[in-house]
């Protein structure tokens, strides 16, 4: 079984630029999560999708962050414009459904904003 795929693995941009991350969850997994992991901290949920609908985006900075999962499969997370404090690893995870107990994580995208 293929795991959660993410790209790119690394990205370096200047502040005020835009960036997009892509995630393809495990096949058949209805629920998809985007987490932000700042160095020295645990991951923090940004947004959770159930199929193509948003379940929780309460911690997503909506003035600069956006995410979509149009067909209920893969997802894109965008930052525009980026700030220095957005430097972090962005982790995508998936589970069978909202009640799915185990979440499976991708390798993450390490973003550096200079």
């Amino acid at each position: 079984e293929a795991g959660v795929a993410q790209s790119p693995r690394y990205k370096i941009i200047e502040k005020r630029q835009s960036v997009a991350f892509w995630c393809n969850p495990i096949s058949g997994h209805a629920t998809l999560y985007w987490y932000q992991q700042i160095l020295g901290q645990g991951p923090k949920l940004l947004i959770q999708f159930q199929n193509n609908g948003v379940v929780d985006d309460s911690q997503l900075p909506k003035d600069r962050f956006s995410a979509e999962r149009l067909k209920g499969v893969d997802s894109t997370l965008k930052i525009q414009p980026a700030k220095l404090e957005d430097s972090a690893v962005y982790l995508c995870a998936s589970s069978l459904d909202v009640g799915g107990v185990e979440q499976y994580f991708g390798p993450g995208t390490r973003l550096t904003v200079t």
Partner: protein
Amino acid sequence: AQSVAQPEDQVNVAEGNPLTVKCTYSVSGNPYLFWYVQYPNRGLQFLLKYITGDNLVKGSYGFEAEFNKSQTSFHLKKPSALVSDSALYFCAVRDPRGNQGGKLIFGQGTELSVKP
């Protein structure tokens, strides 16, 4: 508010010795509890979970964890540490109630270092 605390930033253990990585939580009711491990430049890997039942749960790579409701703790343990266990360990809690099921609240992580 739900929260998870890992009181130790780093744990140092000699190979072959037992190890414990501590975790306490604050959640109303009966939480779901998890341990994940993260190797450098890798995503989080699931180790084990507690949902209900026996307070001692066994997971991958010889790890186990003990759920203690009275102390609100879920410490990770292994009887004999290996150098290859050196990694960053995260405790997480999920509140199974409410309409936003699935969200994990993570601790800040504990760096485990096992020396030969």
